[in-house]
């Protein structure tokens, strides 16, 4: 079942008096419960695409259907309500929060805004979400600033899944984490997808990360999707120069023979 369909998305930025196309006619589809890995180098437009789809920046052209609705036509109260269905996790999304905000407030906010559970059940739901992402319920009382980077990303994931979204857009969501933490975070995301049927649009410059979690891969370059296909096929036999460069760039552990 098609969850999201983007057609011909365009976004131009002015740069040094010139118009630069960050998105130059991008089309993609995402099925419910599926992970689409979106790979590209810096400046390829992948983060712009994530921001356009999550309605953080408006596109200059194109259309998006999400759960059967004209997603770009939504505004005001309608958009606010429907945002519960499409959440996002960025590299350090909680870094933008008031550092004194408590974990409980950060996770409780979407529960309150979207009236996910009755008010009386909110604290219990926060505790359940913390437990699900591997943090003790007592963390609800802690400040964001007292968390490590890995704990912050777990809280960001708990916040994202709190309003029971159909799609979570992850933009370099594990890139700042140490390798051992990163692996555990990827396992958590995969487990959550299995349990809740969440679809992910997973944006990264790291093909090794994407290959761990993606059903399909799309390669972006200069504002366009230049290659797309099943993950194993794109990794095993990349057709585009950009895809080949990304495959070559993954460091391989050189064990002596």
């Amino acid at each position, binding site marked *: 079942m098609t969850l999201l369909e983007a057609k011909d998305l365009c976004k131009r930025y002015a740069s*040094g008096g010139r118009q630069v196309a960050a998105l130059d006619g991008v089309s993609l589809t995402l099925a419910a419960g599926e*992970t689409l890995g979106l790979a590209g*180098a*810096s*400046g390829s437009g992948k983060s712009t695409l994530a921001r356009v789809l999550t309605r953080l920046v408006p596109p200059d052209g194109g259309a998006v259907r999400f759960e059967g609705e004209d997603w770009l036509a939504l505004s005001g109260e309608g958009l606010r309500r429907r945002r519960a269905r499409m959440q996002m996790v960025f590299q350090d999304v909680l870094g933008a929060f008031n550092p004194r905000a408590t974990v409980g407030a950060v996770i409780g906010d979407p529960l309150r805004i979207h009236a996910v559970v009755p008010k009386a059940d909110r604290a219990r739901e926060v505790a359940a979400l913390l437990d699900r992402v591997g943090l003790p319920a007592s963390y609800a009382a802690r400040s964001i600033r007292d968390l490590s*980077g890995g704990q912050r990303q777990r809280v960001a994931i708990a916040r994202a899944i709190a309003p029971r979204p159909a799609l979570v857009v992850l933009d370099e969501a594990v890139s700042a984490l*140490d*390798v*051992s933490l*990163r*692996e555990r975070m*990827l*396992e958590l995301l*995969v487990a959550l997808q299995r349990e809740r049927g969440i679809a992910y649009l997973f944006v990264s*410059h*790291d*093909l*090794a*990360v994407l*290959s*761990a*979690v*993606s*059903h*399909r891969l799309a390669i972006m370059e200069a504002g366009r999707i230049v290659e797309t296909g*099943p*993950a*194993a096929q794109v*990794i095993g036999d990349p057709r585009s120069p950009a895809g080949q*460069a*990304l*495959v*070559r*760039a*993954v*460091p*391989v*552990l*050189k*064990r*002596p023979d």
Partner: protein
Amino acid sequence: MTALCEIRQLRVTYRGQPAPALDGIDLDIRAGERLAIIGESGSGKSTFARALADLLPGGASVAGELRWAAGHAPRAGRDIGFVFQDPAASLNPVLTIGEQVAEGARRHLGLSRKEGRLRALEMLERVRLPDPEKTLDAFPHQLSGGQRQRVAIAAALAAKPGLLIADEPTSALDMVVQAEIVALLGDLVRDGGMTLVFITHDIALASGFADRVAIFRDGTLVEAGPTGRVLAAPRAAYTAALIASHRDLATPPLIGEAGR
């Protein structure tokens, strides 16, 4: 290989911190080698790089010895070049690329303004920047992140130091650019007969070019040795775990049969 620097019982404690950031470090840096210092966050690897280059912040207390073969501590810029993770932090936004790359060479090699500019041009060519002539008169904000890091490398090497310390020089860059920068550093160090100390969290990246690796964790040195030996037969359980947690394109996906 002779030791360029013998580090003995190095301990660094930052002001106001109860525990040292680095403690009991014994390690030799050998002349002409490519040494990778590998560790996760909080391992002390960046503190080690800064202690070596005498770049620790004021108030940090240092105990132990750094015995330099030259008999004196190396002079920053002249004997040691340093490349930081974020090239924006090491480049001055209001000076042209040419001025910044020439600066160290002029100061340490006593070059005239004109000679400095020529040296800067030569360095920009060596770090394979496109259109080096034009880049001389550009400002940092006009370049991409990868190009800025090339400029930072050119500036660090302009005065021909014998030792280059690179502290996570590719962590802020995408992987395609990372691969190019690592290859560039390897070539420059080999061609120049320099010693390279490369700080990284990525054991696979290090395995591609380092002669020796030193694994740091929680401010201590876990093990050090030739890259091949450490990867084939790690002596510490932590090193083995670090190797096991590496993921590349040959690692089975977490989503099982899906996508196949």
